[in-house]
């Protein structure tokens, strides 16, 4: 190397922030389903978010170790000041945070400002973008509706003043909400609300999904859609040193021991493969072609020693424990349930005989047996609309009716669902009774269907399955053509409102897939929106849960326990209920 070239390199090194990431440390992980892209305002699937969360910085984020999850400042100096009426949120950005280099910046270093956040949030309102997250911001900000209306079907005017999203100075952002809401902050911690730079978006207008440029710890190095994604440490990432005091938790202690005082991120390169089949996924992990992996359903038995007294109490089998594999567990902040179409002439409606039909089906579905057989005990029955780990959960509430198919049969008898000469029940008016259940086509769907078949067989009700792709079924449901369908809802943000809104009448046909319309429920829900998380709101949530249990628009399913494995050389791992990945906190010691 010539002397002046060497000098240039040295100079460059001095200009850059101290980058700690070691490019030789390569983390290999897998996604279970293909991603769709990396524009935070365009993607909503879990798999794309695991990547965008590492490229873009939201205003606030979660503490890595604290449980229950705790919001902390990310690119701001402190959590925002919230006005007494719960409407005005004011954020002060940290100066000196820069975007990763990109040709759109024309060789200059581009600092992150409040205007970037204003732009990034407004993008979710833009009718031309069709953000899948627009329901989180629609009508939320003062003047937002007017601005959207002015845009019609075209692009939003980003330069027009907007009362609800104001840039007070270079580093100060003020959000003004239309309604009192003390629970808005978790929404802003979602990866969807990370900061993008307007120049980059405009320079790559046709293909923003492939050009994610943010201020986060990683940048996109390579993307083969549906097959392989490679991230590399962002050399311009701000200096972030890990500093935490561990409690008594042994995992916390191990994390602090591995990371204390180290600059983040440590891993230089992350190689993400998309592996949809369970066999290659599991065998790849065992063969050390992957560093971290979930345990596929089929391997739970061979990987875990499960205590039959308490199936959630498990340890790793000796064979894997000896290899130094680490096991971490996490109850997912999500619920699974089957809903009835409440507008359907057979299963819907609020007359007593319809409630009895729905109740009888709920009483005959063997949730516990399915958890034992399909989930291998690695799930708990769902008993409350808000799952554990989300603000507003009530662990003492039992919402699922007791499994009792005999009593369910007797209940149907009482309401005139008589058994006909062919051995199947008829409707109270004597018409034949047959129920259609929508379902997917995977092998897991088939396993569940076997339990459903059993349920309806014991009730002597004819059952047919309507198999289809997710979007076909979703469309059919939108048009009111389904009778029953199963869904899972994961927390977008850890607040009960995200779950309770699933039965809110005004969301019928949207997120309220059951088309449930109950005036009492709606009144309670609207009252709960104005309250911060606390006993007063919990009381309303209990009352709403009772309505859902009494009317039975849903059959409560289960809540899954996620088991994640990592090989011995992976250090600093702790599962987080809301952060999709821990990559920026990991270190590899080969």
């Amino acid at each position, binding site marked *: 190397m010539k002397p002046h070239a060497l000098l240039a390199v040295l100079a460059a090194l001095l200009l850059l922030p101290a980058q700690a990431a070691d490019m030789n440390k390569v983390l290999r992980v897998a996604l279970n389903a293909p991603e769709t892209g990396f524009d935070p305002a365009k993607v909503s699937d879990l798999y794309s978010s695991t990547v965008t969360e590492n490229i873009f910085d939201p205003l606030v984020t979660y503490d890595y170790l604290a449980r229950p999850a705790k919001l902390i400042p990310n690119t701001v100096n402190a959590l925002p000041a919230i006005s007494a009426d719960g409407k005005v949120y004011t954020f002060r950005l940290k100066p000196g945070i820069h975007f990763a280099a990109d040709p759109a910046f024309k060789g200059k270093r581009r600092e992150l400002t409040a205007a970037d956040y204003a732009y990034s949030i407004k993008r979710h309102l833009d009718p031309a973008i069709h953000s899948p997250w627009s329901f989180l911001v629609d009508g939320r900000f003062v003047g937002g509706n007017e601005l959207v209306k002015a845009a019609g079907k075209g692009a939003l005017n980003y330069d027009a003043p907007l009362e609800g999203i104001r840039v007070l100075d270079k580093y100060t952002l003020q959000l003004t909400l239309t309604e009192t809401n003390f629970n808005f902050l978790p929404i802003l911690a979602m990866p969807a609300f990370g900061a993008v730079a307007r120049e980059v978006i405009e320079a790559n207008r046709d293909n923003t999904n492939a050009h994610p440029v943010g201020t986060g710890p990683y940048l996109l190095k390579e993307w083969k859609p549906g097959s392989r994604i490679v991230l590399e440490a962002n050399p311009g990432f701000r200096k972030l040193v890990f500093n935490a005091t561990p409690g008594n938790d042994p995992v916390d202690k191990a994390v602090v021991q591995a990371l204390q005082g180290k600059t983040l991120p440590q891993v230089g390169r992350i190689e993400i493969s998309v592996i949809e089949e369970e066999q290659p996924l599991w065998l790849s992990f065992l063969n050390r072609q992957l560093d971290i992996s979930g345990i596929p359903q089929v391997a739970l038995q061979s990987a875990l020693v499960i205590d039959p007294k308490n*199936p959630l109490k498990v340890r790793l089998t000796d064979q894997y424990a000896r290899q130094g594999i680490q096991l971490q567990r996490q109850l997912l902040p999500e619920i699974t349930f089957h809903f009835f179409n409440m507008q359907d002439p057979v299963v819907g409606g609020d007359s007593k005989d319809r409630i009895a039909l729905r109740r009888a089906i709920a009483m005959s579905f063997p949730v516990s*047996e399915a958890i034992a057989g399909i989930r291998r005990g690695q799930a708990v029955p769902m008993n409350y609309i808000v799952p554990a780990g989300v603000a507003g959960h009530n662990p003492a509430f039992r919402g699922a009716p007791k499994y009792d198919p005999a009593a369910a049969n*007797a209940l149907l*008898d009482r309401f005139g669902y008589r058994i006909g000469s062919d051995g199947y029940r008829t409707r109270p008016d004597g018409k034949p009774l047959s129920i259609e259940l929508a379902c997917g*086509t995977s092998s897991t769907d088939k396993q569940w269907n076997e339990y459903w*078949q059993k349920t309806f067989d014991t009730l002597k009700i004819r059952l047919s399955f*309507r198999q289809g792709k997710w979007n076909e079924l979703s469309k059919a449901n939108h048009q009111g053509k389904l009778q029953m369908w199963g869904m899972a809802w994961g927390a977008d943000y850890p607040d009960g409102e995200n779950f309770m809104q699933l039965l809110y009448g005004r969301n019928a046909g949207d997120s309220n897939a059951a088309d449930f319309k109950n005036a009492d429920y709606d009144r309670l829900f609207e009252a709960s929106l104005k309250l911060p998380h606390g006993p007063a709101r919990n009381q309303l949530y*209990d009352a709403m849960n009772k309505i859902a249990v009494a009317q039975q628009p849903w059959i409560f399913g289960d809540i899954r326990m996620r088991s994640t494995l990592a090989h011995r050389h992976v250090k600093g791992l702790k599962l987080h209920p809301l952060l999709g990945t821990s990559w920026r906190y990991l270190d590899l010691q080969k």
Partner: protein
Amino acid sequence: MPHTSAPPPAAPHHHNSLTRIGWRRLRRDRIGFAALCIVGAYLLLALAAWSGLVASHWQDEVAHPYAPPTLFAGSAPHHLELNAADIDAADRRATSAAALDGSGATGLSADEDPLAADMAAAQQQAAQYRGAEQTRADSLPLGADQRGRDVLQKLLQGSATSLQVGIAGALLALGIGTVLGALSGYFGGLLDDLLMWGYSVFTSVPDMLLLLAFAAVSGRGIGTVVLVMAFTSWTGTFRLMRAEFIKHKGREYVRAADAIGAGHARRMFHHILPNVSHLLLVQFSMLTVALIKYEAILSFLGFGVGVTQVSWGAMLAEAPAELLQGYWWQMLAVTLCMSLLVTAFSLLSDSLRDALDPKVK
């Protein structure tokens, strides 16, 4: 796509004599005859399963989940298999522990439940519906699956379904191919151009797409599987039959039929068809083999039969999950059972082709 090849062209013969000669030759061919017997045995078994004489209770949960085959009860993997009671007990403990005032779980109270009175009454009347708890076996001749169902019973029932699917699919494909091929070859001209156009379009579109598209329209189940297979497999027969009909329509015996006033339909299906039927027989047995294997792949892709039915494909689709846990018996049983039939069917096709080849004296 079932891989079929056209047998050598045949000279016109009277069909009865050819069939008789063929049968005599087949009787002499020991391998062919043995294969015929095996295929026959499977057909009988399938009929028995279909009519409910055997394996009608394949859905009963008669053993513990994944109970091993009796002979290998000692060496099979012994994982703990949880049951519903374990989950219930854990769940009850968790909710009671969480009740803040120590009074136990809360929930919907009787005065808040619109059905409270009926629920209480139903409890009283439930006795008539309570059945006795069944005892479950620890091992079965061929082991059990995840729900504790007998693999042997599933295998028998699955054979019936798979044979039914294979034969029905082959017949349908053969029917479409023969009728269209006959029309195309016999009449020629514009009709031929049109059908050849359809043929080339169908062969140019990848099977996988046709499959996904057909499956989406017609729902799931045996009917769909048969339709999908027929729609994607008729092209080979079409080409073969078209060529044969072109060849035969100019032959003397057809012209003689014309002279005595036989109509087109009569000439096509009464005179020509019997003379090419030996080709159809061979084509049929090859297609059946191909479709039985095709069904396995379809099931794996999620287009198989529903939960009230079982097929070899449906059983094989469970294999990857079981193999990872060390439960090998279902996969082995299906593979052996399927191989035997498919091998016998293939050998039978070979023998049929030889036996019905008019050139061999």
